[in-house]
């Protein structure tokens, strides 16, 4: 049941009606039942795994909450983290480890009798594992108390708009909303409808159309020229953005229909002027999760191990920062997928962060801070960051490391060659137009133009109606048959 499919729209309408018609005390159970139906629709066995994880963590959380001593609480936190992460590792990484072992044994000319287990990855497991790890840590830290109501906790783990690909919910913001009663609000329905439509347009009209060019090129990069690979690289940067932000828009809109505000995941990421700024704007719920549960603890632990002010001529703050970034982004890459391409994609960001750190240091030392912030330089920085992130996406999208390295080589040596215009040149041309339209729209958004126009009611009404009519006609006229969302595989 994909968000942009008619069956999901019927499902959503049915849940919405039941939620508002049936007595208030049933609401949490309606959402819980809907969430499990939605998730089991993909494969009923996925529901069992989710149910098992929910029960296990609920009891760990309960046992932790009744302990007074910190050491005992820590034991239950460790038990919960171990259990949850083992499930994630088993489903997501077992085959990867086996495959790596087979590869290494081939290199060593040893032929052990081991085979892949071909384990099916339960969709969304990475997301709800991170969500529950965050919850357990928060309970341990005392940021939230143990959720006594099992149904509320189960809904926190399985809420259908976010279970497949986030946004990763935080116990501090999501749990209170799940406990609250949300009366029917017509404005909320309108807002949800608008946001859902924007998401559908991004997914069906832009992302899936770009995929028509990107997929065959990345499937066989060796038969394409450098210019074609460059085009596919740029297209993929926009495809993944429109795919994931389109999905997020639909998730946010679906949750908002029930009065639940999920965390927005994107804030004009390709307008970032530094790599750290990019990660504040891209997949925000993951970035914040990594910051709070990986980066900060690692930085804290490292700082305790480095009591001196300087080591090897470097300030200890620099070493703490680089250590925390290295661990965080290595894990970030590995979290995205059990493939060397993702691991190297994570390392690429470690390099980019380190480079950014030293460039900032040089700018400060040379007294260029004012120049660095001037608009023309800022535009250049935005373009540079876009190029760097697009290049990093190559590793993310490539099927193998070999493919990725070949693409990099061609990008820098074969740009003047003839370009492939896609299976349908009309579609490719339309893709370019759509990207141009999206960038133009976001330039206005970046400058706050749309926000200012909202003050002008007349303009706002005419523009708003025309805009949403345009989106609706766009989806029905140019929408490509929906395929799976890219982030579902994580």
């Amino acid at each position, binding site marked *: 049941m994909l968000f942009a499919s008619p069956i999901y729209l019927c499902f959503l309408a049915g849940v919405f009606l039941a939620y508002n018609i049936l007595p208030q005390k049933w609401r949490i159970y309606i959402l819980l039942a809907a969430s499990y139906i939605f998730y089991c629709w993909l494969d009923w066995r996925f529901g069992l795994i989710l149910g098992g994880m929910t029960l296990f963590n609920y009891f760990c959380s309960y046992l932790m909450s009744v302990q007074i001593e910190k050491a005992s609480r820590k034991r239950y936190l460790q038990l919960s983290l171990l259990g949850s992460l083992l499930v994630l590792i088993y489903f997501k990484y077992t085959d990867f480890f086996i495959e790596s072992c087979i590869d290494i044994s081939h290199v060593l000319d040893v032929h052990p009798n081991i085979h892949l287990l071909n384990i099916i990855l339960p969709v969304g497991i990475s997301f709800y594992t991170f969500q529950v790890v965050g919850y357990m840590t928060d309970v341990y830290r005392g940021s939230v108390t143990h959720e006594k109501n099992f149904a509320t906790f189960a809904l926190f783990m399985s809420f259908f708009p976010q279970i497949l690909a986030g946004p990763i919910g935080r116990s501090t913001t999501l749990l209170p909303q799940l406990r609250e009663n949300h009366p029917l609000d017509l404005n909320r329905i309108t807002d949800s409808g608008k946001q859902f439509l924007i998401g559908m347009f991004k997914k069906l009209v832009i992302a899936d159309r770009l995929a028509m060019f990107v997929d065959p090129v990345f499937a066989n990069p060796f038969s394409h020229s450098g210019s074609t690979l460059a085009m596919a690289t740029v297209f993929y940067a926009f495809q993944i953005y429109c795919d994931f932000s389109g999905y997020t828009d639909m998730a946010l809109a679906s949750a908002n229909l029930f009065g639940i505000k999920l965390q927005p995941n994107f804030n004009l990421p390709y307008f970032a002027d530094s790599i750290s700024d990019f990660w504040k704007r891209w997949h925000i719920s993951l970035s914040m999760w990594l910051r709070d549960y990986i980066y900060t603890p690692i930085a804290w632990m490292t700082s305790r191990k480095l009591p001196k002010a300087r080591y090897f001529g470097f300030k200890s703050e620099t070493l703490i920062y680089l250590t925390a970034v290295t661990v965080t982004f290595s894990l970030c890459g590995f979290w995205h997928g059990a493939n060397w391409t993702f691991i190297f994609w994570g390392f690429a960001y470690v390099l980019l962060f380190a480079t950014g750190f030293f460039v900032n240091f040089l700018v400060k030392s040379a007294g260029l801070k004012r120049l660095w912030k001037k608009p023309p330089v800022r535009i250049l920085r935005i373009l540079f960051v876009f190029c760097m992130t697009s290049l990093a996406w190559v590793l993310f999208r490539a099927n193998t490391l070999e493919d990725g390295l070949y693409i990099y080589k061609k990008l820098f040596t074969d740009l003047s060659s003839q370009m492939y215009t896609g299976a349908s040149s009309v579609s490719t041309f339309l893709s370019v137009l759509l990207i141009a339209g999206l960038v133009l729209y976001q330039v206005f958004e970046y400058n706050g133009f749309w926000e200012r126009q909202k003050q002008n009611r007349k303009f706002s009404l005419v523009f708003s109606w025309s805009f949403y009519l345009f989106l609706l006609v766009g989806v*029905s006229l140019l929408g490509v048959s929906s395929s799976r969302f890219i982030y579902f595989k994580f």
Partner: protein
Amino acid sequence: MLKNLSTWSIKVILFIILFFLLDFSISVFLVGGLMRYYGIGTHPEILIIGHSHLMLGVDKELLENKTKLRVAKYTREGATIEDRAIMIRQFLNKDSSKIRVIVYGVDAWMFNEEKLSENSYKMLLPFLSDTIVQDYIKNKCSSFEYHKNFLIKTTRFDELLVSSAFRGYLSKWTNLKFGQVDTISLKKDLLKGKHESIKVDPEKWKSFEKTVNYINSKNIRLVLLYVPTISIYNNLDSVNFKAINDKFVSLESKYQYVKYVDLNPGLSTHYELFYDPIHLNPSGQKIVTKMLSTHLKKYCITDSIK
């Protein structure tokens, strides 16, 4: 709350009405463009029916210049034998008064439609209001898809159909693919087995013959045109290739108004005329169009049966 609800409902209904008005206007505009592009309702004397092979094989404007007759080129990428039968019926049902010749694209692989899209019927969706097309599509797609397309008219189009509609208004009928086939890579691919086999699905042949019979019953000349395919490709399975050719030839004696024109001899070895193993480039298209016009003048136009 009630007042708010009524204002909100009015706004929603108004938005829906506006959407359907826009949807209707856009679809009327696009169907108009498509009719012009395909020549439906333009009272042509020659009708060209086929898929991309014929689309890139014949230049409509050049053919009109050479024959001094109005030509309609109703060709679509991936059109199957079944689709083409419907296209012919749809066309003749609307506009058969002046048609003297139908040029139907044939090739050795047309009865093996494995590589053609299973949903090629979607290209006929813009004409859903036509009863012949409607019956055909009803049988082809799910009930949900049918009703969705029936209700929201813009869902019947895709970017290719939109582009064709605009080309219709701009009177731009060129179908060109520039470049030349890379015979070295082609030979390598063929050695690896990357090619379709020639085989005749009896059901497909039956369906094809039904169309031939239908055109014959309308007393309209039918030219079965084999736009050349590259010899390297044809020679892969020369026995079956010849067998299919013989089948096409046999139709000439079986039906009174059928003429088979095979342009392979003399052209299939000229690799410089091909964009890929099946499709012609602009030079190939020009030559084939001129040859077709000669054949049409010789067999059909001077010897009109109407």
